[in-house]
């Protein structure tokens, strides 16, 4: 039945994307006759901004058989319960987008609908009071979620913050053990088959050439093969996501270890703060139309909690997506496939998703175009839906204090997003869909966190008397608070499970 299998795979580029791909392919295709090669150059730095992850990464690690404590110790990882967003809806605001839902539906009507009703009628408490992971994050506490679905302690999930460079190293050792061959060098030329336009081989600066059936382009922004050779084209999203530069620098941790990432809005962008075991990763993502590189760097350094531990690292990017992420025999994974700023820690998830899909639609020598077509359809949807979610963070704001915020607040947004925001604002309905990593709870967190509050009641919810709701709300709020206080401190928990770096 199957036509001739492919035999050789060349991954162009190391870094998180390259080594995640190499590790996953070497594991999932083990025992089969695939030769997997990876080319990387020590001279080319990796971007490594994607140090914060989403819970899906745990499935990737589990599939590969990683021991969680060992992985955490070797990548100096911390636990992550969500992201705190400061100054987004208004200056002075703070909300946490947690890995978990707020409350439970009551009488068949979603919790947030009841919350909005109480909020309109009596004010009441912020929605975060009804989320255990937010309460735990605010208290700097963490423990593993419970298995018992009836327990409040099962109402959250978690991810990690880790050193992406160390993660790549960890994956490299794993992949090399499973037969992946690493080549040190820079690619100086790409040979195409004249008729088909398929990539035949890549030439390295040491003179050697590597040919392959399938090329995975993990070369980062440049898209060495997907753009350089295959000229896939790039869909530019800068009119919706105008930030185009970043400056990054680590510093030492001051204060207790927090189990969450922070994104603090600035005059022309935002600053990330990612706590690791041994340091804090910081970076300022900004729009060069509204602030100079020097001013952006100063803004970052001024807000560091301690002295910088390294030189500032400057990055440039264009938000958007490659028109076809799989073109002929080249599949782009990672930043070569598209760039979405790390506001919601999506980079590593999109890599993981692409690897899974590549395996699902793994080609053979017949290069059936239907494979790439379905792969591209699914990846496009994923990128577009992440894009809309990111745009929401900028657009749903009341800030009018700088030209940058005036632009994003008033810019035209995709119709699909306009409809979503209207549905929530008018009626509290979250428009949802099958493919797309952010589920209802995430949209609710950001809507409410950025002051998009439903203006009207869900008529079905009005059947429940307010006093009854209030009693249930009060109980849940107190339970969340108590449960959070009962968890270990983040640092203690890491030590308890033996996940601290030695």
């Amino acid at each position, binding site marked *: 039945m199957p036509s001739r299998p492919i035999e050789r795979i060349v991954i162009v580029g190391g870094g998180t994307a390259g080594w995640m791909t190499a590790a996953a392919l070497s594991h999932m*295709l083990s025992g089969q006759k695939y030769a997997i090669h990876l080319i990387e150059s020590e001279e080319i730095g990796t971007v490594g901004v994607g140090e914060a992850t989403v819970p899906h990464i745990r499935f990737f690690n589990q599939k590969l058989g990683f021991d969680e404590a060992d992985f955490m110790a070797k990548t100096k990882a911390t636990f992550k319960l969500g992201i705190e967003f400061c100054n987004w809806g208004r200056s002075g605001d703070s909300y946490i987008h947690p890995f978990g839902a707020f409350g439970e539906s009551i009488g068949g009507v979603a919790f947030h609908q009841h919350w909005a009703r109480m909020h309109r009628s009596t004010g009441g408490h912020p929605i975060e009071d009804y989320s255990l992971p937010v309460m735990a994050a605010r208290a700097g506490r963490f423990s593993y979620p419970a298995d018992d679905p009836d327990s409040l302690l099962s109402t959250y999930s978690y991810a990690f913050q880790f050193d992406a460079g160390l993660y790549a190293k960890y994956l490299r050792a794993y992949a090399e053990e499973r037969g992946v061959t690493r080549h040190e060098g820079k690619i100086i030329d790409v040979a195409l088959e004249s008729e088909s336009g398929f990539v035949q081989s890549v030439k390295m600066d040491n003179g050697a050439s590597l040919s392959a059936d399938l090329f995975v382009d993990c070369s980062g922004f440049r898209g060495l093969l997907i753009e350089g050779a295959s000229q896939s084209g790039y869909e530019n999203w800068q009119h919706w996501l105008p930030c185009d530069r970043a400056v990054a620098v680590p510093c030492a941790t001051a204060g207790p270890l927090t189990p969450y990432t922070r994104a603090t809005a600035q005059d022309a962008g935002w600053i990330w703060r990612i706590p690791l075991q041994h340091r804090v990763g910081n970076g300022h993502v900004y729009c060069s139309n509204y602030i100079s590189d020097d001013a952006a760097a100063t803004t970052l350094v001024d807000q560091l909690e301690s002295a910088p531990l390294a030189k500032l690292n400057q990055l440039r990017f264009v938000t958007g997506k490659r028109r076809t992420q799989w073109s002929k025999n080249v599949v782009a994974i990672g930043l070569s496939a598209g760039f979405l700023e790390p506001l919601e820690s999506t980079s590593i998830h999109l890599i993981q998703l692409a690897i899974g899909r590549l395996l699902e639609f793994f080609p053979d020598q017949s290069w059936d175009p239907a494979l790439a077509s379905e792969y591209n359809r699914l990846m496009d949807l994923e990128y577009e839906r992440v894009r809309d979610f990111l745009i929401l963070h900028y657009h749903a704001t009341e800030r009018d204090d700088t030209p940058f915020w005036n632009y994003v607040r008033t810019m035209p947004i995709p119709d699909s997003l306009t409809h979503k925001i209207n549905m929530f604002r008018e009626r509290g309905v979250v428009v949802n869909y099958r493919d797309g990593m952010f589920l209802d709870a995430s949209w609710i967190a950001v809507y409410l966190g950025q002051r998009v509050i439903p203006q009207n009641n869900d008529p079905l919810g009005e059947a429940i008397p307010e006093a009854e709701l209030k009693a249930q709300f009060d109980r849940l709020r107190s339970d969340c608070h108590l449960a959070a206080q009962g968890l270990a401190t983040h640092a203690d928990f890491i030590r308890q499970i033996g996940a601290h770096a030695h």
Partner: protein
Amino acid sequence: MPIERIVIVGGGVAAWLSALALAAKTSCAIVLVDTGGIDDSLGLPVAIEATLPSVAELHARLDIDEDQLAAQTGSSYGLGRALSNWGESGAVAFNPHGEVGANLGPVAFHHLMARVRAEGGTVNLANYSVAALAAQTGRFAPYRGDGRSVLSTMAHGLHLHVDGYRDYLQNAAMQRGVSVIEGVPEEVHFKSNDRIDCVRLSTGHIVEGDFFLDCSGPARHLASKMSGFAFEDWSAWLPNNDMRVSITPSTSPPPLYAHIEAHDDGWQRFLSCQDWVEELVFSRSAGTGAAGTYAFTNGRIALPWTGNCLAIGGAAAVLEPVASTQLHLVATALSRLLDLFPHSRESSVEATEYNRQTVEQLENARDYAILHFVRTDRSAPPLPERLTHRLSAYEASGRVALYDEETFETWDWIALFEALDITPRRYDVVANGIAGEAIAAHFERVRAVMLKAVSSLPPQLSYLQSQKAVAA
């Protein structure tokens, strides 16, 4: 101003289910205008309706116990469909409700099936489905455990005795205060553009309301009066336009499945409930309106919800029941309406979202229906673009391309592809890393576990009797 008065037009199953749902979940006053005549409120007037498992969700939301419902209405249970003559081989295939087989490590069962076949083996998916095995042996009881038993992979629908079901719904709705008035709308009066004020009936009565549901089937007494009304005709892909019904008393236990058979000119369905067997014949030849036949056109209206008028069931879309979608489309429409119930009489955002979801759902369900005929009907025009993509993606990868608002999930599509003798050219590459013997052992184990579980089930009739005893 909130909606306080709802008018439902149509006296069939769709109308009474709508009445019950709205009476149970809203505080509105509800008037049902019973238009009489045959019950084509679902689209096609059948005597026994095969439901998909998903209908249970609305029943649960309305506190309807399906076991009691079956016992009291003369209905029985359904575990899938037997299909004959739909593929090139002419073989009989079974499309079960629920899951098939079990993954082996990271590899999905259908990819294992393809691998076994690539090595010369034969696999019939019905041998690895609890629903199919139970249906073959006539055994059934719903599974209510914690999900650890293999029985949890079985899903079931109902073979609803429509008259009994309608009476049941009517009873429940009237108990909740729904009032009925007989008559057929003759004039529709508007307050403003697409805002119906009242309906004047053939009896001279005037019925006023804030919100109107058109459940009058293809007559579309209200929907056809709305501005921009348009009917999108699906006949090019689904050309059948004539249904012949015959119903006879049955003496044997009802099979747990519908049997659908493809003909050169249409198709035929046999379906049983407790005391009846129904035979439906669909064709495109007659359309003469001869006695005992019903003429129809497959298709949908452009916008099911316009202004303050929502069309549900056959009024919104007619889709011949080759895939048993009629009640599913009504039940999900009602769930959607409850989720999106307008917060005020003037509001329109809910309609926008309702229409988006509904149109998406209708087109996906339509494509599933069209797929049935791709092997038997060679004169058909090019398939809808999305269906073409689904076919080519499946043939190329063994993966099912799914979209938002699907009625049918991965196994439903695969089982139908199988019945049509459409098989993928390749399978999950990871399956090659598993030894052939390990796969063979896995298949044996899965089948043995399933057979054992099925043998623990009672004959369906015993279960129905026990439920009748509870009801009495």
